[in-house]
């Protein structure tokens, strides 16, 4: 009889103990889902041999300001000038950096296009003429994760009036191959 009583008390204590544990915790699950896709990114960097980008270095919206240029006068460091009988060309090195993530792409194609027409001056990027009519391919085998110099050049006729502001936007598009 005494053993039965002890067992009963023990069992009751066990039940109380287990109930106490269960009552002071709560659990839940959060199921998390994401779909990863590959992507590439393009930024402009100042090239050591060219003009420093006026703004936006390290981003995909930079500004390159040549300042005052002329066929024969003083020229800023970082600008390369050449002159012919009818015009002169100023050029500055500009680095393009394309990086890839989560992609097995081996290289990229880089194209450029002027934002608006320029019937007077001639624009080239990396030695390739660019207009607003269509995209021009600068390279079909760009190397990822490396600054690649694609000099921006403007050819200005001698007939251009002094003090004329020349401005345009060059749109670049890198596509993973």
């Amino acid at each position: 009889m005494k053993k039965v009583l002890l067992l009963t008390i023990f069992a009751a204590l066990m039940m109380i103990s287990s109930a106490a544990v269960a009552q002071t915790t709560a659990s839940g699950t959060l199921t998390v889902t994401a779909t990863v896709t590959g992507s590439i990114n393009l930024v402009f960097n100042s090239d050591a041999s060219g003009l420093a980008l006026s703004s936006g270095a390290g981003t995909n919206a930079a500004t390159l300001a040549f300042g005052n240029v002329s066929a024969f006068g003083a020229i800023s460091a970082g600008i390369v000038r050449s002159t012919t009988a009818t015009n002169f060309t100023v050029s500055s090195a500009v680095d393009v950096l394309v990086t890839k993530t989560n992609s097995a792409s081996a290289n990229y194609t880089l194209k450029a296009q002027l934002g608006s027409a320029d019937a007077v001056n001639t624009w080239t990027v990396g030695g390739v003429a660019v207009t607003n009519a269509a995209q021009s391919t600068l390279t079909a085998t760009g190397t990822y994760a490396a600054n690649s110099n694609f000099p921006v050049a403007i050819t200005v006729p001698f007939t251009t009036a002094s003090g004329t502001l020349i401005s345009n936007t060059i749109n670049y598009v890198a596509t993973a191959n």
Partner: protein
Amino acid sequence: MLKKYISIMRGAALAALMLLCGASLPAQTTASGVINGSLNNTTGISIQFDSDPAGVTLGAAGTNAATANFGTVSAFGPLAAGVTRPSVTAANFTVRTIFDVQVIQGGLNSTTYTLTANLAAAAPTGMSYKVDAITLTTALQTIQVNGAYGTDIAHNLDLVILTAAPGAGGPAVNTPITTTINFTATAN
């Protein structure tokens, strides 16, 4: 003598019966009763996940088995509403959403709770998961030690994704990657 006694008793019984009838008439307009009720007031706490205004909308919000879908994520591409990208490095990028945890208690003297979490299984290749900057593993990690009851508490959920290509240490691409995180709230 006996007849007289019987007659008196009959009269007394009749009078008593009439009194009882008379007494029962007023009792018909009132009634009373007693119910002996009992309950076992068991203590306990519960946990639920709620959508945070700054995060993605949870599936099955308000329950203890919710889902959080980041949608399509990449290092540079667009992200779904409620998803941000706090960092991008050469090695990895992080996407973040915010979710709320609400723990309710009843019958306890406890004023706060401890929240722990762990991954239900090892993280998929190229992925790691953080809650409030604590990297989760399959072992329990303490997320919060002084959670307040009865209110939504926001937590950051970060996915740190390697930028390497699939097969080179990076995660699988263009396919949903699903992981379950277990949370436990314990009354302090």
